[in-house]
């Protein structure tokens, strides 16, 4: 573990020192997990990330360095990196996407298909969603779509579990597990889009009242 060039204290994050409360020079290409002082892993708790995010923010936020233009600029860059890192790791979908990229797995464009068994369900769900979209607020097609939510949620949890199994421990570059994980990820992406759509239908429903 590296130590602070100013006070010698052991560093928890390369972004700054918690002992002397100063932001430190850091490469902009450093991995988000490293910025959070963590070993890359899919099964990290969102709560752990948020706790660390607040802690480090209190060390290096530009608000605390407004008087010194140089330190302020550094604090601004580092806090930008910290917040950007939170964005890429907080959501399981984005976190998995990031790990696949880092491990040299196939991109979204290279593997576009979804698990076979899942496709049948997708066809059915899409049909219900299409009908709901075309229907008026408060009509049966809308009701039918809202009833989908529990099964979509359940399905999502199951897929995330599968991905956890595939990415834990992290497979090496070229491993078939990375391709399988990408396929599962495509399924989660579909589920998220469907859930978002349900949410906006729910909002529209409420607004229509």
């Amino acid at each position, binding site marked *: 573990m590296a130590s602070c060039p100013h006070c010698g204290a052991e560093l928890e994050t390369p972004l700054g020192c918690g002992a002397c409360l100063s932001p430190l020079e850091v490469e*902009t*290409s450093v991995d988000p997990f490293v910025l959070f002082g963590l070993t890359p892993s899919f099964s990290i708790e969102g709560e752990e990330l948020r706790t660390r995010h607040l802690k480090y*923010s209190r060390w290096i936020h*530009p608000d605390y360095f*407004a008087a010194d233009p140089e330190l302020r600029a550094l604090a*601004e860059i580092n806090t*930008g990196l910290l*917040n950007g890192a939170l*964005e890429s790791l907080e959501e399981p979908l984005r976190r998995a996407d990031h790990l696949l990229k880092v491990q040299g797995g196939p991109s979204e464009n290279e593997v576009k298909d979804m698990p076979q068994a899942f496709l049948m369900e997708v066809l059915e769900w899409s049909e219900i969603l299409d009908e709901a979209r075309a229907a008026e607020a408060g009509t049966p097609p809308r009701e039918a779509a809202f009833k989908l939510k529990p099964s979509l949620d359940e399905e999502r949890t199951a897929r995330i579990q599968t991905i956890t199994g595939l990415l834990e421990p992290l497979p090496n570059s070229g491993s078939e597990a990375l391709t399988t994980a990408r396929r599962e990820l495509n399924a989660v992406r579909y589920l998220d889009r469907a859930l978002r759509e349900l949410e906006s239908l729910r909002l529209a429903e409420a*607004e229509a009242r």
Partner: protein
Amino acid sequence: MGYIELNVLNNQSSLAMGIDLGTTNSLAAVWRDGRPVILHPEGKSGSVPSVVHFPADGSQPKVGREGRDHAAAAPERTLFSVKRLMGRPAADVQGELARIPFPTSEGDDGVLRLNIDGREFTPQELSALILNRVHDHGCRALNDEKPDRVVITVPAYFDDAQRQATRDAARFAGLDVLRIVNEPTAACLAYGLDQEKSGNVVVYDLGGGTFDVSVLSIADGVFKVLSTAGDTHLGGDDFDDALVGLIVEGLAGELSEEELKDPGFLTAARLSAERCKHALSKDPQAELHMVLAARGVTFHRTVTRAEFEALIEPLIERTIDSCRRALSDAGLAPDEVNEVVMVGGSTRVPAVNAAVESFFGRIPHTELNPDEVVALGAAVQAHILIGGSRDMLLLDVIPLSLGLETVGGAVSKLVMRNSTIPCSVTEGFTTYADNQTGIDFHVVQGEREMVSDCRTLAKFQLKGIPPMPAGMARVAVRFHVDADGLLTVSAREESTGASTRVEVEPMSGLSDEEVERMLLSSVEHAEEDFAVRRAADLITEIGTMRTATERSLDGVREHLDRETLEDIEEALKAAGEAPSADAERLQALRDELERATLPLAALLMDDVAKAALSGKRLEDV
């Protein structure tokens, strides 16, 4: 003009001011003795109406309360709600422009211009006048200590261009902006401070012209914004307009369609509507009353609160829709909200309070004055920023997503809305043709999927990519949103040793060069304006002197020697032909008249005449 004066002041104030630059009223506060306080000069209100009046004689614009005092008599020369025009292209604000009593145009830079007596003003410059007025007003309460470091608040839902415009306004005003802070977030800071809240807090901020709702989580002094939603064109002004509709309806028979659309008429009608609205917040019914003396027309009608509430219900519903969206984005249900805080003068309308209470199922907080709480919060943030406290931290978000145009006009989002700022995101792109040496980038802001539905922030080209097969180049595009919510984009080609880099500032609005040029020209104009004013003063003074001389000369003519008499008559004649604009020449004529009339003055024992002849104004005697 007055607003360049601060540039030359080299003050070392240890204070930093928080300024709430509102649509209808503006206000300043500072941190003093361990808490934020509103700045108001002895015996006066701290609130400065965001109004600019341009006197018909071409003299200095009257800003604030003074401007508002002139509004009723001369609405056709008075500007309200300039904030609604900030950072918006003309096409987006057609409705607002209908009530602007001056001709408008759009510059090549897409920035609106108001043509006032032959001079062009951007909304930024007009806001600068208001900022200066608020700042001066605040400084008077500080015994003329002049903190030129300020925190300025903006609606949370302001986009990049609107924030940039606010920053430019502050530059025109000669102020050093420490931070642009979102209004609801500032309000939450002020409330959290007073009540040591923790948990999930919703801030419902309905001001004169904008509506914001922000959801925050507070823990251990960290105020973290989870989501924000709103409408930059919805506020108390719209409530007034609902009542203006009643006036227009009622006068339809008496006034022509043209007269009913006249900006001057509409401003007068809005002032009446506003009075009625205020009364309806207290009483079950109120009078809507308007006199158009020039046309001999009077409008009078009683409006009940129920009637008013029916008129504004759709507007209130829109704010509740935004609340629902903000909660959805924060991933919370209404019953997971621990506190609701009301901000902005329009939350005094009982129907607004009732709607919020019923949606969240709890009584909203109204302990702090809803007009003051944003400025107080801005002062807290200013205090943090000048190193006064590490106990608190504000983590704000960007209200609208940022992205790049991809194939087929679709948007690829790089920074999602409600991301904590400052935020840096890097995304990889590549070439799509062999030996392609440049890539065009189109930066947009908005939630929609297609570029055409979003707001363009910048377009730029990355050049100098070495020739190579398609898909081989590795271009890293980096978006950095700073703590003010402003975006900078950079792109770099890094597949070969050679790398290129471009920095782009958002192009909507005024460029840095333009701001510089306008700052310069405002300095030039300041001199010009001063000369015009001085000339006008001299003409008045010479007139007074001539009248007094001619009047007294008749009685004592025979007592003066011929030389003196000729001298006086010559000076009078020259003064009578005085040019209208040349201040130097006027000064010389005035001095000459004074010199020539000295013997006359000596002769006259009449104190009044003496005083007038020695250059004092008669009314001063």
